[in-house]
């Protein structure tokens, strides 16, 4: 199974209780990976979540490859 590196920030980091993890997964898209992890962690509900793959914003249906780094991005609040 492909191995994916996942980093957590802000509300997700606090909820999951860690900054990052490695996951061997059958999920073939970012959205499927999210659903898998949501099943495990029961993420807090929020609208407007985005996702980045290898430090670039990405679509939820973008394909994942072995070694990819994925970050789920809760609604931002800079400034």
């Amino acid at each position, binding site marked *: 199974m492909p191995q994916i590196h996942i980093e957590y*920030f802000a509300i997700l980091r606090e909820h999951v209780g860690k900054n990052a993890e490695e996951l061997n997964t059958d999920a073939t898209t970012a959205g499927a990976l999210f659903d898998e992890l949501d099943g495990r962690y029961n993420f807090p*509900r929020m*609208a407007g979540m985005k996702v980045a793959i290898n430090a670039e914003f990405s679509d939820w249906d973008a394909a994942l490859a072995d070694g990819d780094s994925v970050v789920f991005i809760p609604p931002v609040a800079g400034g």
Partner: protein
Amino acid sequence: MSGFEFSQTAPSLETLRLRVTDRTAGAYVAFEGWVRDHNEGQQVLRLEYEAYEELGLREGERIIAEAAERYGVTRARCLHRLGELEIGDLAVWVGVSSAHRDEAFKACRYIIDEVKHRVPIWKKEHYVDGDSGWVNCERCAEKGSGSLLSGSGGSGFSRDSAAKNRG
């Protein structure tokens, strides 16, 4: 030269300003976001900023480049604080210089608007009453399961809300 940066410590405003001065520029517009003592009806004590820095720097640089191209300004820069901030502290600074004032005002406004929407920075507010919360995330959570950090599923986003952002 980097146009967008994060800083864990309070910057020198004079140093920031000097980075956009230019003999050909006649106008300078600066925006500063300050930590204010209230937000959405709550009394704020202090706050924390956290960023996904690798993507944040890339996105910040893109925003600066877009502003420079759209408005033809001479120089433009942005700095966003990370870490713990108190009331009155500088949270974000944008500085733009240009030949004339119209493009400096427009570019400065463009940069701060885009930074707030696009750069992955999160703000956790600590309130006078002892409560705290992640701005924007909290409001969304309230509409869902009612509990900020333990959505009980069903009414929240996961598949549905995530789907909104696909494509």
